[in-house]
Every structure is written in C-alpha cells, then in structure tokens.
C-alpha cells in the first residue's frame, strides 16, 4: 500500500461494463508528487484527502468486494495522520 | 523462475508463524551468467548453504511451494543447479 493525495476525479460514460457504478479518482503519491494514477475508490474519498491505496489486483478485488472487477489501483482508506521519522503529519 | 547463488543468511526470532522452520537466505541473482542484485528468499529445499547455485520461484507460487497454510513468502529456493547451459547468439530473433 502507499499513501497518496486525491487530486481529482475522472468521469467516463463509455467504459468496460464491469466498471459501471464505480468512482474513479486521480491520485498523486506523497513521495512521488509528480506521478499521477487513476484509482478506484472503495473508501468514499474526496478531492484533497490523503488516502491509502493498494496497487494489487487481488487486493483491489477484496477492497471493492467484487471478485469480477479488473482493477489495479484502489483507494481503501482515508488517512487521519501519519508519522515519518519524528514528524507528525495531520491530514485534516 | 530465476537463478542465483546463496550469499548469506537472515535470522529472525520474531516472525510470522507460517515461516517457522523455514530458513531465510540472502541470494545473489545470476542473470545470463552475470552476478546481479541481492534478494531474500525462503529455502523450500531446507538444505541450501553458502555458495550453492540454486533456482528460485517468485510471487504467490513461492508460498504455494512450501505446501502448508499461511506462508507469507514471495521468493523461494526450489532446487539446486548442477549444470547450466545457455547459448547466446547475436542473430537470434
């Protein structure tokens, strides 16, 4: 899992039938802010939230509770705070 | 599967119960006869030692090869290499 910030969302009408009904968010990793990824959302995250993402197909299936979905990156939690070394980062 | 040479050992007292009794070794990967990076692997043969040439299986199959439930391993030594032949030709497609 990695920590990322939700920086936007994606709206799509034409997509794989298995993706219908899922929210797609754009994320940037906190240790790699220039990189962008599109993630499924299993934690009701909003733009600006710091989130936990899993980057594994099997874990995405479990997080979304859908064994059929073909997903790679999925948001599975909203982070309250994290510490790195002695610094505490409050995410609210 | 990948090939390597056993280069060292890892010792842990506190570990996941599924890993108990399984040696953990440091393996120097060998790619096309050349030494590459170091990885940590579970020894499914339970008899590899320093300097042995081995082949390893990665990913979920590494936990499957240990044939018991709950073995969190993603790289495992599965056999020893007696002889290794690789022909490399420049004009191969």
């Amino acid at each position: 899992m990695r920590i990322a910030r939700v920086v936007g969302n994606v709206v799509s009408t034409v997509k794989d039938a298995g993706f219908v009904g899922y929210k797609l968010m754009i994320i940037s990793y906190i240790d790699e802010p220039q990189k962008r990824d599109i993630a499924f959302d299993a934690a009701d995250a909003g733009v600006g939230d710091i989130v936990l993402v899993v980057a594994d197909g099997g874990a995405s299936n479990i997080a979304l509770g859908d064994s059929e979905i073909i997903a790679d990156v999925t948001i599975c939690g909203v982070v309250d705070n994290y510490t790195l070394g002695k610094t505490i980062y409050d995410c609210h | 599967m990948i090939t390597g040479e056993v280069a060292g050992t890892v010792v842990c007292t506190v570990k996941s119960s599924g890993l108990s009794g399984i040696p953990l070794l440091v393996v120097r990967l060998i790619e096309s006869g050349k030494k590459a990076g170091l990885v940590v692997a579970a020894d499914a043969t339970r008899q590899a030692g320093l300097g042995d040439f081995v082949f390893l299986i990665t990913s979920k199959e590494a936990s499957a090869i240990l044939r018991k439930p709950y073995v969190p391993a993603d790289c495992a030594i599965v056999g020893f290499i007696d002889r290794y032949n690789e022909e490399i030709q420049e004009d191969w497609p």
Partner: protein
Amino acid sequence: MQICKVVGTVVSTNKTEKLSGMKLLLVRAIDLETWEEKGPLLVSVDTVSAGVGEVVMTVGGSSSRQTEATEAKPVDNSIVAIIDHIDVGSKRVFDRTDAENKT
C-alpha cells in the same frame, strides 16, 4: 521478500471495514549492497508488532495475504518478521543488538 526499515506510522479511521484493526506502518526498502534506503515509501500491515526504527522483512503481492491476520484482506504488503541479524558472505551486515545500542 524485502528487507525494510520502519520509518513511520499511519492512522486511518475511515477505511474499508476489512482493514479495521490492522496496524499500518510506513516502511522503505533497504539495499542489501549499500544498506541505504531506496524505492517508494510503502504502507505495510504489521503482523509481528514491529516498531519505528526496526529492520523488518516484508512480503508483497498476493503472498502478503498468506498470514492469519491478512487473509482475504485488501493488503498488498505485510511485515512478517523482525530481523535479528543478516550475514552476507562472511560479513555480518546487520545486527539488531548493535542497532539498538546505537539509538
């Protein structure tokens, strides 16, 4: 498997119910040649009660769900061991008691 250093902690209350009760730690992989931290900052599920500053072993991918605590959970990285010592060749490259004395 990857040798990692625990560099931080993560607290999340609003997560999928399948992740509740799990202790999350921030880890970074250690290069076994240079003993320097490398690669991305990863969030790993702690199954062995590790602490910040400790050197641990993590597994990634679907193997990370092969523990009693993480089975069928949305997890892609787990801490499965706390390292006592590592020998490469005839050299001891890491010793937990030495590391504890330094800090």
